[in-house]
């Protein structure tokens, strides 16, 4: 609401553009999300919790973080696919720190983005430098989360 007020005050001529942009995004989401959410509901019935909890459950610790990072790194898609999938893992009993490592890993590696944007626009050397400097950081994010959760019990 505050943002809306600022926009109206500063750039009223931008408003139609804002709504067009929001609407075209929402139409795409509106068609795909129900499908993705339904798939997630189906898949979570098919995935037994035993297949998730021992690997990335709250008690899985550092190994669980490594497993989550490995899993996150190979998710080849945008958020419409990833978040319903993450919801499946989450509901099957994944730990919060492991979930954070998974999402961080997905966002840092993002195979689809490397192929379609980073390689063509920024070049292989940039991608190599990016992966060496940030590829191990999802593990750090998971460890920070473990630390925060230990200090700040739910």
């Amino acid at each position, binding site marked *: 609401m505050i943002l809306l007020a600022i926009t109206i005050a500063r750039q009223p001529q931008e408003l139609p553009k804002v709504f067009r*942009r929001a609407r075209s995004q929402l139409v795409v989401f509106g068609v795909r999300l129900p499908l993705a959410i339904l798939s997630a509901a189906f898949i979570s019935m098919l995935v037994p919790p035993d297949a998730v909890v021992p690997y990335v459950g709250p008690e899985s610790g550092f190994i669980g973080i490594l497993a989550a990072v490995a899993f996150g790194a190979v998710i080849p898609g945008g958020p419409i696919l990833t978040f319903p999938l993450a919801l499946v893992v989450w509901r099957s009993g994944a730990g919060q720190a492991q979930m954070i490592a998974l999402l961080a890993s997905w966002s840092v590696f993002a195979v689809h983005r490397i192929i379609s944007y980073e390689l063509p626009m920024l070049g292989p050397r940039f991608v190599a430098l990016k992966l060496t400097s940030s590829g191990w950081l999802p593990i750090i994010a998971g460890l920070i989360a473990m630390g925060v959760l230990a200090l700040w019990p739910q």
Partner: protein
Amino acid sequence: MSNRKTDFKLIDGGFNFLAAICLISGLFVFWFYGLPGVLSALRTAAGDSLFIIPLIALGVTIGALLTSLVPNEIVARHLGRQAGFRAIVLSSVIGSIMPGGPFVAFPIIVALGGAGASVGSLIAFLTAWSAVGVHRLLVWEIPFMGAEFGTLRFVCSIPIPIIAGVVANKLSDNVRALRMDWEKRH
């Protein structure tokens, strides 16, 4: 309005892929649990959709407003002039609040490189946009996993782009194979 169909395609590869996943997993559920299983999944999905989609709509609107408030060229010009650790922190902050998909972010990164920003700033910006992403928090994480998890994820991700930027600058300066000669490439 008559050419609305040409603006964006609703039924494309992504849609077909999702539809296929949905159909296949649905058939498996039907196979294992029969019709009651499918119906209970439909109920879960309907409940989730009612909860998730309005929140996503709100997040998308906030994102669209932010996009119009953050003018890309000005961002690139200002960040390009900064240097060192300060540039990395600033790139991380702006990358985090930068809304929009890759088609918005990548042209900015290229423009930043052209404006003379260090490679560490570029990597900090890219990593902040993808891994910290306030936009992602609003559109995806809070609707799907709740505000508490979203906040924890956000807080734990804040150091990531800063570390990435510092390491990238060090590597680029010291490892010949990873040295970026941005000016020569463009």
